[in-house]
C-alpha cells in the first residue's frame, strides 16, 4: 500500500492503495466515479475511457502507480461543463443513447476527438470511436450525435 496523489477532475486526491491496482478500480471503488464503466477489463471496449493528461486512455489498463501525478478526467469531470452538456444534449437529440453502458465512454471519446479536431467528418468520427464498442446502436446515431455536438459546439472546442 502506498499513498498516491493525482489530480482527479481538477482536484488533487490522495489514494492509499497498491500501486498495481487498476486505475479503473481506484476511480470506481475509492473515488465512487461510477460513470467510468467496466466493459471488458482488457482495453477492447472503451467503456472505462478517461482522459489522462488530456488524452483518451482506457483506465482498465493503467495501474494506479502509472497515474501518479497525472491529471485524470472522468465523465463526472466533464458532464457539467459547457462541452460536456453540449455532447450530452447532442447525444440525446440524435438518439445516440440506448442501453447507455457505453455512452459515458463515448462522451469521453467525443471530447477527446473534438479537442483535436472540432470539425470531424464522418470517417474521422468513426475512426475516433473505433475503440468504443456499442452493441445496441450500430453506431449510426452516435456518429450523428458527434456531428450535432460538433456543429453546435463550434465555439467550445
Amino acid at each position, binding site marked *: 500500500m502506498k499513498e498516491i496523489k493525482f489530480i482527479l477532475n481538477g482536484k488533487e486526491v490522495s489514494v492509499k492503495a497498491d500501486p498495481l491496482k487498476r486505475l479503473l478500480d481506484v476511480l470506481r471503488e475509492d473515488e465512487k466515479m461510477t460513470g467510468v*464503466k467496466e*466493459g471488458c477489463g482488457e482495453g477492447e471496449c472503451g*467503456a472505462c475511457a478517461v482522459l489522462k493528461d488530456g488524452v483518451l486512455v482506457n483506465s482498465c489498463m493503467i495501474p494506479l502507480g502509472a497515474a501518479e501525478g497525472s491529471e485524470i478526467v472522468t465523465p463526472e469531470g466533464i458532464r*457539467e461543463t459547457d462541452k460536456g452538456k453540449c455532447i450530452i444534449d447532442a447525444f440525446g437529440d440524435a438518439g445516440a*443513447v440506448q442501453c447507455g453502458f457505453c455512452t*459515458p465512454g463515448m462522451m469521453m471519446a467525443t471530447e477527446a476527438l473534438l479537442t483535436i479536431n472540432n470539425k470531424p467528418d464522418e470517417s474521422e468520427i468513426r475512426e475516433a470511436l473505433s475503440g468504443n464498442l*456499442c452493441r*445496441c*446502436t450500430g453506431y449510426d446515431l452516435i456518429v450523428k450525435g458527434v456531428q450535432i455536438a460538433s456543429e453546435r459546439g463550434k465555439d467550445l472546442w
Partner: protein
Amino acid sequence: MVGAIHELPIKGWIDTKGVKMGARISIPVRRIDAKEKAGGWTKYIGDYQFKNLQHGRFLRSERARAKIIEIKKPDFPEGYYYIDASDIPSSGKNNIQMIKDDWRVFAVSDVKYIGETIAVILGPDKQKVLDLLNRIEVIYEDLVPAFTFDDALSCKGGAVYGDNNIFSEYLLNVGNVDNAFKDAVKIVEGKYETGFQEHLYMETQGLVGAWEDEKITIYASSQCPFYIRKSVAVTLGVPVEDIRVRQTTTGGAFGGKEHFPDVIATPLAVAVNKVKKPVAMIYDRIEDISFTSKRHPSKITIKTGLDKSNNIIAMDIDTLVNGGAYESSTTIVLQRAILHGIGVYNIPNARIRGRAVATNTFPSDAYRGFGAPQGLFAIEMHMSHVADELGLDSSDFRRKHFIKTNDITITNAKMHDDVKLPEMFEKIDEMSDYSSKVKEFANDPVKGIGIAFVNHGGGFTGNGEQAIIKGVVKMKRLEGGKAGLYVSVVEMGQGLQTTMRKIAAKELGLDYEDIVYDNPDTDIVPDSGPTCASRSIMVVGFLVQECAKKLKAKWNEGVGVEAEDVYKHPDGLVWEQETLQGDAYPSYGWGINVIEVEFDPVTYEVKTTGIWAVWDIGVAIDETIMQGQSSGGVIQALGYASIEKCELKNGTFMQHTMADYTIPTSLDFPKVETCFIDNPYKYGPSGAKGAGELVFDAAPPAYAEAVQNAIGKRIYDIPVTPEMIMEALK
C-alpha cells in the same frame, strides 16, 4: 393527441424518403433516459453501494461430461462460505424453473458441460475468495462427451438427455409433400449451418442478492424480473411473494438476460438464504463470454421440388438446433425456427421436421430472434440457390412466391396480415438501386449485392399470451397531474422507458415526461410478462394504451384513482399447441434488407459498401428509437453473419475474450439506410407491431447472398469468414 412533443432539433436525419409516417406518435422525442445515461449518472448493478457486501464466484465444472468423485476443499476462514446443493432448503429443489426445469442449480455427483455451477464461494474479500477457489480440487471420472449434431444423434457416450438426445421433435405439414415431389421436374437440395453467437451486451451479467425486511431481494440486470422471482421461489421452496426482484438499469440484454439470470439468481438466493448478507455475483467479461448461453447453432436441410414453370410445388425441410446440456427454452426456440422455416413464401406442399438435440455444450438459450434467424437464413439462402440453379433472378424468383393475405401458412391457417412486401420491395429498390446493381455487378469480379425478405411473428407463439402469460398492467393518477405506469417489462436499451410513456401520454393528453415509470420491482408492479419475443410494445404497449383510456375515463375521480387492463387474445385466432396448428402469431413484422459488398481477392476480406432496410412494423412509436433499432439490429446481425466466430473445441468456446470474439466496431459497416412503411395493426398501440427481433432477421442472408454474388460461389454457412471464402474459391 400527443402532449408537448419535442421536435428533433436537427432536421433531415430520419429520412423517410417521402413515405408517409403513421400517426403523430411517431415524431421523435428525446429519450427520457438519455441525459442520465450519457453523463454517467445512471447506476447499473455494479455501481450500487451495499453495506457489508460479500462477493461470490462460482466453482465450475472443468469437464464436459464426468462423474464428480470428490471435492477437496481447504479450510474456510471465518466469514467465507462454500455453498452447494446441500444448502438448498428441504422445501426447495435443485432445479431452475425456467420454461423447463431440467437445468440444475448446482451440479451434484456429475457434470454435463464445461462451466456448470458446482458451488458458490463467497466472502468479503475478492482476492481471498479467489484464493480459496483456486485451492479447491475437484476429482472427476471422465465420461465420453457429445458435442456435435452427429454426436448427439448417434448418442455418443450414451444419451445426455432421455434415451435419444432429442429434447423435442415436431412435424409441420401443409398439403401433400410426397405426392407433389412425384410431379416435380427438378429438385434442388441444400444444407445450411449457422454457428453460436454471443450476446455481448456491454454490461456483463450481474445480480446482487440481499436479505432485506426478512426476505430475499434480488437486484438484477435482467429482462424478466418475474422469471427470476418464480425460479428463486421454486428453488427455495417458498411462495413467490416471499421473493422480491428489483430490476436495475440494464446495459443491454438481447435475450441473454431473459432466462440466464435465473442460472445466477438461484444459487445466489441459496447463498443469501444461508448467510443473510448481501452477496454480489457480477461476471467479468471473460467469465461472461466463456460461461453464458449462446444462440443455438443450427443445421437445416432443404429439398425443393419445382414444376416446369419454375414454380415451387414442394418443399421438405429438416431442422436441427443444438440445445446443449439442458433444455431450458430450447423447445420454444425450435418452434420459432420451424414456424419461420418457409419464410415469407406460399408453398402449397411443405413439410418441416424439427428436432432439438442435447449435447455436452453450454446450454443454448434465448437470443434476439429466438430461432427465427436460423430458419430464415436457411430458407433465404436456399431460395437464392434454387433461383441460381434455374438461372433466374433471385429476387424475381422469391417475389413470385411471396405469401399473400389469406394464403395458407405452414401451420394450416390463413395469413391474416396485410402483406405489403411488393410495395416494400419497390421502396428498397428505389433506395438502393438494387435491380440495376444486380445487372451491373453480374460480371464484376469483386462486387456483389444481396437481398433478403423476412417476417417475424410478434409476441408469444400461438396462444401463449393468453394461455401462459395473461399480462396485466396498472396505471394510477398521481399528484401534480402525473400518472404512474406499472408494468413488468423493462428498459434494456430498446427505448421502452420512452415509448411506453408516449403511448400512455397520448391517451391521457399528458406530456410523456409526466408519466412515472420506474424500473420494475415485483413488489410493486403487476406481472405483465417478460421483456422478450418482440411483445413489449405490441402486447404490453396495447394494454398500456387500453389501460390509459380507462384511467382517463376515471381521471376526475381524483389523485389515487387506478385502472387495470388484462390481456385478451384477439378474436378469431385459433391454436393447437401440441401439434402447432392454427394461427402461429397474432401478427408479423415484415422486412427487406439489401446489402452491397466488395471482396478483396488478395485477402478474401469483405467490405460492406451499402446497407438498406425497409420495415413494416405497423407504426413506429418513435422514429428515432426505431432508427436505432434498425441500425443496431442490422449491425448485430451482420456481426453474426461475418466476424462473430464462436468455435467450440472440446466443449470450450475458443474465443473467450472481447479481443477474440469480435463484434462490429464503428468502422466495420457503413450507415444503415432505413425506411418504415405504414401498416397499422388493430391490436397494437397506435397500430404498432413487434420490431426488436425483426430487425435482426434479414441481414445475415442478404449479406451471405451479396458475398456469394461477389465471389461467384454459393454460401451455405455463417459466419462467412475470409477463411471460408478462400476455401470456396480453391
